[in-house]
């Protein structure tokens, strides 16, 4: 991927005797690590010491950023990886240090984000003795990570660290955990400066996929169907961003003027300010994106996986598409949810280039989709996003729109999980990929703040905004202070609706309004005082609608860490909404966006066991 593979030729320290800890740090440096996120503790102390000594010699080239809780370190590494395309690095101690990273590791797996987590472990002879701060990390992480290494043979340490980076970044990216007993860290051996583990099956499969170029026959069959299409649509997912294939995909889309919808993870794969961008599809996608999916006759899924938040009812997804083509790097995603008519498993940039070249020069496609374009433009204007603009309450959508005027599609936006996440996805613009950082598949509350911290280290020159909810930010609230400790100019926005807004929305729709454990109006937290206590020089509560644009302006222009809490309409909902188990034509558009179908009865009792 982007990150250069380890330079293997003649490492200046090759042949030097050093400790396992020093070897770990040397390989990290070789792999391009310029920041580590982590928390110290007994079983990782030797390696923390090696990082300290390395930094003393190299002008702090690998700073250690310390979160409030190891979960924060995991999300920082994730934010760093998502924003940069490089591998994020986490370093934690054994037992609780390692188990606190289980959630971010699973989150990275679910969103295909490359990180390497280095965990200390009790010394090899103590493994299995129920030692102090011992946990079976290989067992626990084996179930959630892309791969886990438990290093029992110190002579394999160096090759293992290097291989972990290779596995994290190749194929479908993901998290790799390395469990390193303390005696392995203290072991002394000769640094080789190169070498990887054989990982025979994995490497063979990855090579096979990389070498699987899009064939002429496949292009022919693709264009034979495409030539008959009058309403083609691209459905782009996070894979486009992970593969760094957005430029190639957009070139292909532009050449044939194909409108693009993106998934939550694919936001930014295509400039949302362009006319043929229909923004996000799915459960909380724009109405026009979902209607376009219903209306298209040829669907091109690129790095997307027909997730249940997109295709809740797979047989009825894109019901008018006579042909569905699917590009992915993971063979297991082909036909997993939706049987497709055509597929290609391979590297995306090459495939997009080949497809475009073949279409222009061999198939000589001369597309005229002007009817479809005017249909799409009609959908965009008729079913545009909208909300209650006359309400006395501050509307969350208006807050995002106001922030968007300053961010201009060029800021990094991270989020927690819930309503604020969906509003941010719907109302922000993104002119390029790797600006939108959200916990998509796992939906982990508490992701936003630490992810913003990691992203700011990856992109020190970009504006980074954490859009958070009053419930989500509580989950990793300790990292409010991490922002100020490291003097990061991160902008933290808490949209406070006094509760778990998304949960309340579901309870109102499907549980007769019984707000079980989701009402937080009795909480005593004063977020502004909390931010002030953590050293924020700008910490403001916005309660008056008339002050919205003034406060947002000063917040955005403030230099340094800034915090605002916006008291929003506690009843604001996320619309459109495709209910669980519903099709796009059953989409609830709310009171302010028109619906193409007769009003859907939202009072129907849905079997709650069926919903998730």
């Amino acid at each position, binding site marked *: 991927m982007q990150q250069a593979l380890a330079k293997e030729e003649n490492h200046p320290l090759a042949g030097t005797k050093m400790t396992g800890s020093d070897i770990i740090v040397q390989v990290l440096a070789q792999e391009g690590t310029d920041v580590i996120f982590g928390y110290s503790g007994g079983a990782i102390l030797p390696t923390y010491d090696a990082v300290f000594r390395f930094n003393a010699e190299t002008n702090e080239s690998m700073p250690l950023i310390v979160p409030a809780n190891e979960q924060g370190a995991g999300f920082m590494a994730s934010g760093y990886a998502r924003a940069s395309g490089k591998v994020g690095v986490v370093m934690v101690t054994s037992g609780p240090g390692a188990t606190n990273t289980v959630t971010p590791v699973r989150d990275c797996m679910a969103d295909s984000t490359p990180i390497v987590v280095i965990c200390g472990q009790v010394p090899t002879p103590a493994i299995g003795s129920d030692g102090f701060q011992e946990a079976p990390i*290989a067992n626990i992480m084996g179930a959630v990570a892309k791969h886990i290494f438990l290093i029992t043979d110190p002579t394999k340490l160096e090759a293992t660290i290097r291989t972990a980076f290779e596995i994290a970044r190749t194929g479908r990216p993901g998290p790799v955990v390395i469990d390193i007993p303390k005696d392995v860290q203290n072991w002394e051996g000769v640094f080789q400066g190169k070498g990887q583990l054989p990982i025979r099956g994995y490497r063979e499969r990855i090579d096979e996929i990389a070498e699987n170029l899009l064939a002429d026959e496949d292009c022919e069959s693709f264009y034979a169907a495409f030539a008959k299409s009058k309403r083609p649509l691209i459905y782009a997912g996070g894979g486009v961003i992970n593969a760094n294939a957005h430029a190639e995909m957009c070139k292909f889309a532009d050449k044939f003027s194909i409108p693009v919808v993106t998934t939550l993870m694919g936001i930014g794969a295509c400039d949302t300010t362009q006319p043929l961008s229909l923004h996000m599809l799915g459960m909380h996608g724009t109405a026009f994106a979902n209607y376009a999916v219903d209306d298209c006759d040829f669907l091109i899924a690129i790095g997307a996986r027909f997730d249940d938040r997109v295709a809740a009812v797979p047989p009825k997804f894109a019901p008018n598409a006579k042909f569905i083509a699917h590009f992915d790097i993971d063979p*297991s995603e082909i*036909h997993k949810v939706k049987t497709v008519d055509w597929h290609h498993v391979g590297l995306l940039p090459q495939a997009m280039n080949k497809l475009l070249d073949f279409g222009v020069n061999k198939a000589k496609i001369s597309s005229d989709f002007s009817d479809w374009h005017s249909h799409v433009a009609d959908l965009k204007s008729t079913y545009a996003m909208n909300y209650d603009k006359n309400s006395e309450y501050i509307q969350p959508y208006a807050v995002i729109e106001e922030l968007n005027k300053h961010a201009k599609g060029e800021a990094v936006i991270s989020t927690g999980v819930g309503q604020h996440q969906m509003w941010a996805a719907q109302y922000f613009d993104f002119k390029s990929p790797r600006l939108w950082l959200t916990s998509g598949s796992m939906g982990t509350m508490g992701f936003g703040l630490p992810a913003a911290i990691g992203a700011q280290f990856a992109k020190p020159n970009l504006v980074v905004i954490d859009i958070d909810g009053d419930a989500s930010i509580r989950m990793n609230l300790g990292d409010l202070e991490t922002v100020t400790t490291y003097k990061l100019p991160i902008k933290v926005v808490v949209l406070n609706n006094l509760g778990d807004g998304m949960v309340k929305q579901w309870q109102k729709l499907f549980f007769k309004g019984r707000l079980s454990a989701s009402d937080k109006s009795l909480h005593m937290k004063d977020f502004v005082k909390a931010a002030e206590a953590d050293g924020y020089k700008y910490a403001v509560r916005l309660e008056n609608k008339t002050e919205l644009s003034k406060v947002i302006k000063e917040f955005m222009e403030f230099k340094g860490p800034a915090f605002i809490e916006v008291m929003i309409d506690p009843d604001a909902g996320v619309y459109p909404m495709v209910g669980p188990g519903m099709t796009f034509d059953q989409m609830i558009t709310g009171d302010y966006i028109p619906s193409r179908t007769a009003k859907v009865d939202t009072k129907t009792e849905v079997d709650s066991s069926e919903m998730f």
Partner: protein
Amino acid sequence: MRHIISILLENEAGALSRVSGLFSARGYNIESLTVAPTDDSTVSRITVVTEGSDEVILQIVNQLNKLVDVVKVLDLTADEHIEREVLLLKLHDNGASKAVIETLTNDYKGRVVSDSKDAIVVEITGVGEKLDRAIQLVPSEIVFELVRSGALGIAAGKQILKLESM
């Protein structure tokens, strides 16, 4: 449909649990699972018998191929293959057992591998169905205990599952 899948697996810590964990995490059935070393000390071979529609079996194979420690996967069911399982039956040594043991040794090619005054152990090798039939034949009151190995499988003809064939 019932499938017999062979897997070559790196001899690494936790590799087996990741294979079995994949089946439980994704809700796939395991009818039997055997694992043993091979002539190459760096890999083990797993034979897993599972049940599922074509789509499910395709997913199982694809998901197994995503495990870093998995070197190779072969669904033997697709082509001609040989399947064998061992059954050990420990029977009471009484009058009623005599006739049964005779049938097992004659019709099922069983072998008496232990004969003490308390119990007789009979070994039978064959495909799963044959062992099922053998077990049904034995009245439960004369059975002390029985143990099955789970199925082993190998492809017929030239097809092999070895590192060299990669």
